[in-house]
Structures are given as structure tokens and as C-alpha cells.
């Protein structure tokens, strides 16, 4: 398990370049199938609206997975992520036309012993914070 980023090369406050991830309905259908979460609020507009949502929303776990992808792309080895937790603060609304965009940024918040760092993530969609308290512990090289 060898991350490509070196522990000695990062400091508290080191920023990871921000990235944007487009999300459309096809992504949610694929995620429903792969995860087994077939709740219709993630693919059927009438059901989403009937339970008070503005439109179809992304699976929270899909959004969390994009944050995971952001961290593992930075670290190099996905096996370097030893702890990953988030709070879902707002839904990612995914309209039929145009979809949505997730904007994710992160920075090193803390350097732990034995080569690990805490990365704090920020995830926004349509100007709203969709994840809060999003943190990953990553074992660096």
C-alpha cells in the first residue's frame, strides 16, 4: 500500500487542487444498480417531489464516493485511505436536463503520527455545501 504523496512533502494547510465532477441521471441509475439502493427518489422525479424534494437527488453515498475519488486520486493508492467519514448537509439536486456539478476541494488539516494525515474536504453543488465534517485519514508514503 504505497501512496504517491510523501508525508514529508505535505504540511498542515497544504491545499489539494479543487476538482469538478458532473452528475447526471445516468450516473444515479448506474449507482443504484451497483450499490443496490433503488430508492426511487434517486431516479423518479414524481416520487422525489411527492416526498417534498425539489427534484431527483443523488444518493448521499454517490456524493461521498466522489469525495473518496478526489482523495484517492490525490493519494495515488486507494488502499491508503484508512478512515473516511462525512455528514450529508444538503441534497445534490440532479435535474433531468443538464444534471448537476459537484465541486470538491480539500486540504491537509492535521499531520498524525506514523505517516498519516487528516484531509478535510469541502463539497458544494449549486452553491450549497452538500457535505460537512468530511474527513479522510490517509497513510502517505
Amino acid at each position, binding site marked *: 500500500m504505497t501512496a504517491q504523496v510523501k508525508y514529508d512533502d505535505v504540511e498542515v494547510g497544504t491545499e489539494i487542487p479543487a476538482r469538478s465532477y458532473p452528475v447526471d441521471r445516468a450516473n444515479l441509475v448506474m449507482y443504484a444498480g*451497483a*450499490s443496490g*439502493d433503488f430508492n426511487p427518489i434517486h431516479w423518479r422525479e414524481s416520487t422525489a417531489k411527492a416526498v417534498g424534494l425539489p427534484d431527483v437527488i443523488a444518493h448521499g453515498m454517490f456524493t*461521498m464516493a466522489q469525495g*473518496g475519488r478526489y*482523495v484517492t486520486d490525490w493519494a495515488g493508492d*486507494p488502499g491508503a*485511505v484508512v478512515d473516511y*467519514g462525512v455528514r450529508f448537509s444538503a441534497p445534490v439536486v440532479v435535474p433531468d436536463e443538464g444534471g448537476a456539478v459537484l465541486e470538491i476541494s480539500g486540504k491537509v488539516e492535521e499531520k498524525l503520527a506514523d505517516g498519516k494525515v487528516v484531509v478535510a474536504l469541502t463539497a458544494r453543488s449549486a452553491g450549497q455545501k452538500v457535505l460537512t465534517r468530511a474527513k479522510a485519514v490517509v497513510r502517505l508514503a
Partner: protein
Amino acid sequence: MALNRDFVGRTFPPGEPYEVSRVKIREFADAIGDRNPIYRDPEAAKAAGHPDVIAPPTFPIVVSLGNPALADPALGLNYAMVVHGEQRFEHVRPIRPGDAVVCTSTVTEIRSIGNNEKMVIETEIRTTDGELVCKTYNTIVERGA
């Protein structure tokens, strides 16, 4: 509706083992749009120090979905009003093809927050040999009417 507080502290025993395959890991990686070769190519995974491809950090949700604690009608959960509140994975090691895993879940907390009900479930994911591979913390919120 208030959830049944008697569920706090209750542990739900594992069901049938879930057998992890390369195909399922690749399907999940495709679904999250992640092209990382360590999820698909055993040689790339070996180059990174793994014995085989590994699963993405959020893959354990596939294994821990369908929690028996939530299915028990005595809990009083209205599933249509449930949203995901928080999620955390503590990885002991990455999940790999060939792992046959089982989940043991414990309800650790139920409380009211305003009109909502919050419930926390901790799940240990172990191989059928008893090796702990991941611990998950799942917080769900039932929105009040």
C-alpha cells in the same frame, strides 16, 4: 413517529456471507466514475503493494446495505421519510475479491432532534474467518411529518 428506543443496544447477527468479486468491484468503480486501475487491473494493484485489485473506500456500503435492524416493523421506521445523515468507514484493510464477509450490526443510538428521529448503527464487517476488515458508522434520519 418516535422510533422504538428498545432497539438501542440491540445487535443483529450476520446473515449469509457476501462474496466479493473482481466484477462487482469493477462495476462499482464504473458506477462512481472512477477509472483508477487499482480497482480493475491485478497487475496495477500488485504494483501498489496489494495481492489483487481492491475495492473503493465506500464499497463496504454494498455489503452493509439491507440492514436487518431497519427491516424490523417493531422499530416503527417510515422508510419513505428516511435520509442519510452521516456515514463513516474505518478500514482495517481494503476489501478484495475472494473475501467472503458478514456484517454484525448494533444500534448504538436513537434520539429526537426537533421533529426528526436520528438513529446510529455500527457494523463490523468480518471475513467468515473472523478477520475484521472494516467498521462502519451509519446515521439515518427519519424526517418528521
